[in-house]
């Protein structure tokens, strides 16, 4: 009987001693954390996309409570959510212009030629490592959908020609597609950048057009028509200086012969100029026998 009492007493003694130690430690080592951080985090979309520049929503909430960032920096939240956070913290909501991913290629299977048939792992990364993937244009989209798979927001889908289409309303500008694309065709832009060159082919005129019907042929008409300073030709490509974006109009797209330069309208989507070649073909282009290793 006594053994039981001794054992029980020892255990109770150790237990209460540790409880006191814990209670003291809790007082002594207490770290104050603003309770608002948890609440703000609860109001955020928990997408952890990183588009705001912070490592996840928690880090963003800390910065917002601290006052270092405005709630509007989160481009994923609906405007209602931003206002809710702003009024909860009593700060200005701030506004961040929505940014989206844009693809610098329009060469789907119906307009861009292939030189060779790629057979292997069905990812762009794998294809790009084997002879560039067999596409005629060395810079063009391979169309195997790495960007579609990496997008956490279902904002990218491959169209019937094997070209990714970004749904601007869903895009959070997290930049995952920018990193995954082996041809580096994606970049993040504010939605107000409406004038857009959807081509990355640095070959000259005929060479570019020979591999893709919607390539920039470096004819320079858009540069000639654009307001001074807005555009220039660089490496056989039309380049837009977005620091002068306020000058941008639909004028440069008017005379483009291939439709490589677009006006991205929020409602209608991409608009080509009236002189751009009409593409009526729906089926993919065949692989030219002359390009296959078979010599005839």
């Amino acid at each position, binding site marked *: 009987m006594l053994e039981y009492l001794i054992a029980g007493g020892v255990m109770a003694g150790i237990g209460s001693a540790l409880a006191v130690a814990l209670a003291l430690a809790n007082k002594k080592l207490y770290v104050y954390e603003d309770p608002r951080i948890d609440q703000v985090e609860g109001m955020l979309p928990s997408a952890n996309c990183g588009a705001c520049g912070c490592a996840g929503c928690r880090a963003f909430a800390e910065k917002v409570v601290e006052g270092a960032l405005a709630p509007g920096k989160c481009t994923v939240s609906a405007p209602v959510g931003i206002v809710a956070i702003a009024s909860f913290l009593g700060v200005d909501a701030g506004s961040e212009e929505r940014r989206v991913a844009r693809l610098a290629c329009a060469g789907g299977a119906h307009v861009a030629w292939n030189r*060779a048939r790629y057979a292997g792992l069905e990812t762009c990364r*794998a294809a790009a490592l084997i*002879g560039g*993937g067999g596409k005629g244009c060395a810079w063009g989209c391979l169309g195997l959908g790495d960007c579609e798979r990496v997008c956490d927001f279902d904002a990218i889908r491959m169209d019937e020609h094997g070209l990714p289409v970004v749904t601007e309303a869903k895009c959070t500008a997290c930049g995952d597609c920018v*990193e995954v694309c082996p041809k580096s065709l994606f970049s993040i832009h504010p939605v107000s950048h409406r004038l857009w060159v959807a081509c990355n082919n640095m*070959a000259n005129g005929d060479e570019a057009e020979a591999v893709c019907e919607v390539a920039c042929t470096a004819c320079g008409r858009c540069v000639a028509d654009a307001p001074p300073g807005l555009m220039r030709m660089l490496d056989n490509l039309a380049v837009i200086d977005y620091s002068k974006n306020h000058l941008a109009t639909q004028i440069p797209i008017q005379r483009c012969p291939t439709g490589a330069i677009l006006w991205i309208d929020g409602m209608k989507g991409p608009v080509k100029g009236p002189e751009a070649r009409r593409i009526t073909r729906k089926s993919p282009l065949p692989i030219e026998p002359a390009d296959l290793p*078979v*010599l005839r």
Partner: protein
Amino acid sequence: MLNGRRFSRGVHPPESKEQTSHLPIRRLPFAPVLIVPLSQHTGAPAVAIVREGQEVVRGEPIAKAGGFVSVPMHAPATGRIEKIALAPSARGDLAKAVYLKPYPSASQEILYGAPQDIEQMTPEQIVHAVQETGVVGLGGAAFPTHIKMKVPEGKKVDTVLVNGCECEPYLTTDHRVMVEQAGEVLHGARIAMKALDARRAIVGVEDNKPDAVEALRTAIGAATDITVEAVPTRYPQGAEKMLIQALFGREVPSGGLPGDIGVAVFNVATLAQIGDLLPRHQGLIERVVTITGPALSKPGNYLTALGTPLRWALEQAGCTDEAASVILGGPMMGSAIGTLDVPITKGVTGILVLARRDVKNHRPIHPCIRCGACVDVCPLYLNPSRLGMLARKERYEEMETEFHLNDCFECGCCSYVCPSRIPLVQYFRISKQMNRERKARERAHSNA
């Protein structure tokens, strides 16, 4: 003398060398246009020193080295520079190249160059002269040879190892070079020994090439500084780490170089070129290329001017309608190409043209059954199965830090034996690329 043993892993694929191994080296005629890319080697690209429309003589420098880890280029034919423009490369991107139009009557004789006396040169002068020849590793890696001829800081090299294994199926360039140019190989080896102050040279040859061993032994004669060792035929015996293990029973440390254990490894074709070019002070403008495969009517070993487009080379070798896939290099480590406008560069050991019946596309990839076949064959004792699973889950960083991804030299044994046909090497190449890009981003981020 040697305490070597066979390295225990690897595979033994069908050798398929009988198509070309008995054929002597023949010359290809000049193509109508030669395309000489300015970056045919590992390191900084060369810088063009010619203008459009300029006339050049076969053997004349047309580009200078763009740094220490770089080599110059020389005109492969007498003719006129057409343009300096982008040209397709085997990697699939476009790179700057010199387009040279040979004169219709241009001869293959080389008149450029002035003889120099190797005996009188110091090791530094030899390293410089080797750089001037533009020779790079002709076994496929295309690493500038003069850098390997410099003794690494704080190390001592006592053995020059001449790699004549050529373990890749189909390829026979090194084999023919050893049989036909044994004297040049030995001369090149002696130049390397002088530059590195090494006391001996060993030529390692796989035992499926007895005529090469015989030719080298005859050429050596009574000399004792160079010996020839036959090593067992097994893929990838020609990887320098495997050859060192087979001959010396020693392992090159992970992440290290052969210089760490006092060895410098050179390919036989590289040394044959150095032995031939250096005394005459000429540049590398042609190389032996095995053009072979079931879809060719005239396969063989062709001495080809650098810059010859593949289309031309294959026409000369009698490419038939059967051709379905063109691979630069051998079937294990070579890479399929997407266009025939790619020129032959310094690192091209062979062109393999597979016929339609040999190419089986769109075979399904099955899940890993954990049979361990890949683990049994990996010559570097890695775990390809585990690495493959991590790659599928995109855990690239872990592959590098925990599972030594960067030791993998992509020999392809794991993919070769995988019963589920998992393209492991393809996964590893992607993983290495992703890791490189991530590190570059992190560097850019920390600099900003």
